[in-house]
């Protein structure tokens, strides 16, 4: 399947995610539109801004009683809204993969790391067991795991958090997805390892034309790593810009976030804090699609 040129890989229009509770309806995502091409799109916001729910909605992972509504959700010509659960399964993990935030809860604790990755590969490719093992070891090496043979036979509790995160990334990259949704994939890693893992993903975007949705709360990282940035607040997209222009952002929320960061190169007596305006929640959101 070769994706169509000229069109974005993923196009989302008017996506909302709601969770009814006993007393009210929580609106996690409110009518957002965005697209992801063969590029790195950073989705930034604080906890509760809806960025993770956006990623989960694209993957069809919002379960009842959660409600997902959209006018359009199209991935490479496929209408995601009309997929059955079975059809979704053939895409999820294969053509769209997601790296979750916490490896502790995403890996099967009673299965060795190697078998889990190999299984992920075999499910989608019908490769032979020996081929799957070879690819798994290759992938572990690609995510800078120094002793792939040992890690292959290890159980998740026997590896560190940073290693667990790299294992997750290896597992998600092994079927060669077209779109990778990475939810804070490197926040548990040390900075140097973080940079190495990002470089692997970066090279995949450049060499294979993979699309990347990079969900993060780290503005500096997104500004230096991504091509485009989408800023979310209270379930809406409040601003979008080129990553290189993030430091000249206009929305008071984005500016407030940037100003609250301590910096090595610019000493400040006091950090500025964010005063949230009620109007940010009611003003119309921004369309972050590019065609």
């Amino acid at each position, binding site marked *: 399947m070769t994706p169509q040129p000229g069109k974005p890989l993923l196009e989302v229009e008017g996506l909302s995610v709601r969770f009814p509770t006993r007393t009210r309806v929580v609106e996690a995502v409110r009518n957002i539109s965005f697209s992801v091409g063969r590029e790195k799109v950073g989705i930034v916001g*604080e906890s509760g801004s809806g960025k993770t729910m956006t990623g989960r909605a694209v993957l069809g992972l919002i379960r009842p009683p959660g409600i997902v509504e959209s006018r359009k959700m199209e991935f490479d010509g496929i209408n995601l809204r009309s997929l059955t659960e079975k059809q979704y399964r053939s895409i999820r993990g294969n053509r769209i993969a997601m790296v979750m935030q916490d490896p502790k809860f995403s890996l099967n604790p009673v299965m060795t790391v190697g078998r889990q990755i190999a299984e992920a590969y075999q499910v989608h490719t019908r490769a032979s067991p020996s081929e799957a093992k070879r690819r798994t070891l290759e992938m572990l090496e690609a995510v800078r795991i120094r002793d792939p043979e040992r890690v292959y036979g290890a159980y998740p509790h026997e590896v*560190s958090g940073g290693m667990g995160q790299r294992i997750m990334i290896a597992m998600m990259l092994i079927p060669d997805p077209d779109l990778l949704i990475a939810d804070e994939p490197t926040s548990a890693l040390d900075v*140097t390892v973080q*940079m190495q893992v990002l470089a692997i993903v*970066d090279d995949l975007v450049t060499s294979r034309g993979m699309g990347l949705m990079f969900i993060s709360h780290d503005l500096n990282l997104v500004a230096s*790593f991504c091509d485009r940035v989408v800023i979310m607040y209270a379930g809406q997209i409040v601003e979008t810009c080129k990553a290189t222009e993030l430091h000249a952002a206009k929305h008071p929320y984005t500016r407030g976030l940037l100003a609250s960061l301590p910096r*090595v*190169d610019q000493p400040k007596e*006091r950090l500025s804090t*964010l005063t949230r305006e009620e109007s940010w929640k009611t003003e119309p959101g921004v369309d972050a699609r590019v065609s």
Partner: protein
Amino acid sequence: MRASPEIALAIAHLDVRFGNGDDMVHAVRDVSLSVNRGESFGLVGESGSGKSTVLRAIAGLARDWTGRIAVEGEELGRDRSKAFYETVQMVFQDPYGSLHPRHTVDRTLGEPGRIHGVGNLDARIVELLQDVGLGAEFRFRFPHQLSGGQRQRVAIARALMLEPKILLLDEPTSALDVSVQAEILNLLQRLKREHGLTYILVSHDLSVIAHMCDRLAVMNAGRVIEEMSVDQLRRSEPTHNYTRQLLKASLGYDRASVDALETFD
């Protein structure tokens, strides 16, 4: 080890080990440092570098250590006295884990007060809540009714109950959003001024250390590999390659420099 009235904390040749035989982990190796009164001293390093273990050894939470630790000129032994905790208190990384989920803020703050016989506890709790910017209305809430930032304020208030002179801060803002981090860092700066505190701050984030501290030590694989002033850091003058690499990585992603990264063990 220097001994002078200016020194709040002095550590000499500290080694900390966990476990026995083949499973032994030598977490801290021959660490020496001294922190002046009223100073903010940063310990920076990646996970597993031993920075938190140094704090835990000072606080008496890691008991298997050798070397010398002196607080306010007094050498510490294996056990910590009640008086020690009136001088040194600790704030932990995870505000979700460090507060008892079934204790109200009132009970959490009152506990150290009751153990140490603080007079007029009632008024003191209200005063502390105000001091950390929460106000008396938070007094009878449970942790699940508080945001992450509010919980960390409660943890800071609890640490201040006994009017300590030294606060050990173990990644106090790493679990918080950046805007909340800014509020907590500002609060810590104000409390330090008002109460004449000395801080030892552990963080993996060089920009937090640079903002808060006067001097810092960089740790890697259990050792202090470099000690410098924050001014030297700001002028990008670290001498050790590891520190340079850490500084570079903290400024953002740069594809070209990734391949040049070295591994230090």
